[in-house]
């Protein structure tokens, strides 16, 4: 059982973060990227060709993270691999003790820098969750036995601000039915949409089965906000938020305020089991934001065995 699984089972507040993409550099590069995040982050998402741009594979990064003493969440997307390749990656992960898996459908190839690539989507995100659970039952999709039987903590993602808004919780429920146990949410910039999603998830009992982990992205400029809005599929960025940063004397400080406001709002919603942070720059942004939010360090939370010390506001 992974530490993340243990923490989620115990109802402890968890902090996850996006591992920046790397293109080589071995353990030294991993350490360099982790340096400022380590004090707060429980587990790191090793992304799978995010926005359809090729980088070091999530399996390699996940194994590397384990080797440098950090806990990985291996993302897998359905865009680049058929079911055989996905099974092989899951089994490779299990072989090295990479237990946390996050299953995504994946951005389309047209979102990336090689739009001429063939899109695969042999499975969809929900079926990929089910595939991981299938392996955990001790056999491949074909029914062929597996020994030793792998164990995973399977998670997924959902986007509360993408249409059809009323149906997103139903889709999340389908992911729980398939076997997902945590749900990392896409960044939501319209707080009312996150509220709506999390309230519906709480009211239907879904957040008891599926640990809800909203995402917070730390940006630095209005230009970066516009770039994310235009090039990351599924992001609904209100124009007034960009204008607010644009007209601020210190854009970076204002961006940080925006991230703080979104994060404290998210933490106050029902069923929230943790937060997921995304920052493209290797600096102390995530640690600074966690400290401002009153989130205890990883060490403090682990030594207390419980994160009741988390304060909002």
């Amino acid at each position, binding site marked *: 059982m992974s530490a993340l699984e243990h923490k989620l089972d115990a109802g402890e507040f968890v902090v996850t973060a996006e591992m920046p993409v790397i293109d080589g550099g071995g353990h030294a590069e991993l350490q360099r990227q982790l340096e400022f995040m380590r004090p707060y982050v429980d587990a790191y998402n090793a992304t799978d060709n995010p926005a359809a741009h090729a980088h070091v594979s999530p399996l390699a990064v996940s194994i590397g993270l384990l080797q440098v003493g950090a806990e990985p969440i291996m993302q897998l997307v359905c865009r680049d691999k058929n079911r055989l390749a996905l099974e092989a990656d899951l089994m490779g992960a299990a072989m090295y003790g990479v237990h946390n898996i996050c299953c995504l459908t994946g951005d389309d190839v*047209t*979102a990336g820098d090689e739009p001429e690539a063939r899109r695969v*989507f042999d499975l969809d995100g929900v*079926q990929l969750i*089910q595939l991981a659970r299938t392996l955990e039952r001790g056999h491949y999709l*074909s029914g062929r036995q597996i020994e030793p039987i792998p164990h995973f903590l399977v998670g997924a993602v959902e*986007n509360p601000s993408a249409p059809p808004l009323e149906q997103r919780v139903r*889709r999340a429920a389908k992911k729980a039915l398939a076997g997902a146990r945590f749900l990392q949410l896409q960044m939501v910039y319209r707080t009312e949409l996150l509220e709506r999603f999390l309230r519906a998830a709480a009211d239907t009992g879904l957040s008891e089965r599926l640990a809800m982990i909203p995402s917070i992205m730390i940006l630095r400029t209005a230009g970066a906000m516009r770039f994310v809005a235009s090039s990351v599929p599924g992001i609904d960025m209100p124009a007034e938020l960009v204008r607010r940063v644009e007209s601020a004397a210190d854009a970076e400080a204002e961006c940080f305020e925006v991230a703080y406001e979104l994060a404290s709002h998210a933490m106050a919603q029902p069923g929230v089991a943790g937060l997921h942070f995304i920052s493209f720059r290797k600096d102390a942004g995530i640690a600074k934001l966690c400290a401002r939010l009153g989130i205890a360090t990883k060490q403090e939370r682990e030594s207390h065995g419980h994160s009741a010390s988390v304060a909002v506001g």
Partner: protein
Amino acid sequence: MSPAHPTDPPPSTGARVVAALEHVVKKPIWDCRMCGQCVLHDTGLTCPMTCPKTLRNGPCGGVRPNGHCEVKPEMRCVWVKAYERSEKLPLWRDHIDQLRPPVDNQLKGSSSWINLATGRDKQVPAGWAPGE
């Protein structure tokens, strides 16, 4: 030893005629892609194979704020339409929430009518057991 997945015999002339007929009927109405395992009644009479990602279990997270497709901005998301239409159906309304198995790529081009009649379209890999 693991048993090989059963493979289908080549289609008879009759089966090919039925498939051609099915395509003639369903292509103009639903833009049918002849996956051979039709789920139209489960998806608000909207063909999920017309989704550029061929998603069978609901929309991806890339749907644009106006309800249009991530991949084809000029097209409304297949799943936005599917949910709307499923609400209007007298039957099968809840089927949209069912967990549909992976597509059996061996059935592509064959008649889903025949596969429905024979039960072939309900066959799933031996290891596939959702909802456990």
